């Protein structure tokens, strides 16, 4: 059998619902397989660990051809909210946790949650704005130190 992956560091850089879930699923799955896992939230991905924002993540309905929705229709007021609600209902039926619940569970699995310093500075976000499960706001250099010896996945 080929060598096993022992450790992953996953970067979440997108601030949409569909931009955040893949990284969360990969981190949770890595821990379930017994791998060490770190999550690094950068740029708009920071919203996934932002106290006031992590419950309100939306699906991008403009510039998202995968939705098979005309761009002009995607831009109408409320369309993003409706599509997000529809997706959340489907996920709930499949017992996929909401983003806040999922992030909390991933922290409970022992994965490390970190926020990007450059992005926090850029958006004026401080430690108090972030959920308690975030271990620290770190620099890119510190991220590479944490990621040493494992795979890095950018989402």
């Amino acid at each position, binding site marked *: *059998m080929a060598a096993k992956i022992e450790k992953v560091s996953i970067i979440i850089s997108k601030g949409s619902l569909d931009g955040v879930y893949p990284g969360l*699923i990969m981190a*949770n*799955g890595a*821990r*379930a*397989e*017994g791998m060490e896992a770190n999550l690094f939230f950068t740029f708009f991905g920071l919203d996934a660990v932002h106290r006031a924002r992590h419950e309100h993540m939306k699906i991008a309905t403009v510039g998202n051809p995968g939705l098979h929705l005309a761009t002009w229709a995607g831009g109408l007021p409320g369309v993003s909210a409706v599509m997000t609600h529809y997706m959340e209902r489907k996920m709930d039926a499949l*017992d*996929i*946790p909401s983003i806040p619940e*999922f992030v909390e*569970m991933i922290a*409970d*699995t*022992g994965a490390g949650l970190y926020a990007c310093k450059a992005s926090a500075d850029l958006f004026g976000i401080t430690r108090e704005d972030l959920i308690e499960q975030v271990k620290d706001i770190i620099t890119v250099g510190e991220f590479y130190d944490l990621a040493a010896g494992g795979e890095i996945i950018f989402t």
Partner: protein
Amino acid sequence: MSTVTYAGTEVTVNDEGFFADPQQWLEEMAPMIARQEGIPELTERHWQVIKFMRHEYETKGTGPTVRVLGKTSGVPVKELYQLFPRGPAKVAAKIAGIPKPRGCI
């Protein structure tokens, strides 16, 4: 597939060490499988999870994922990872003699 001996009885396991036939499993095999998975001793809490895994498999035909275990086994996610550091659903399934649970979340 290969054959291993647990508690004096030969059983068939797959390449990852999961039982090919859950019917071959006996409770007294569990401590030995656990030691192979780095768990020196099975506590009452370990057994709660192992018995839950067996029960889920017997009633649903598949073992639960970590999320389902955390919600329904009576052992929270944090403790599950303390009990089974190498992956609760995966390792508990192996100790319980059932196939590896398939599920992404």
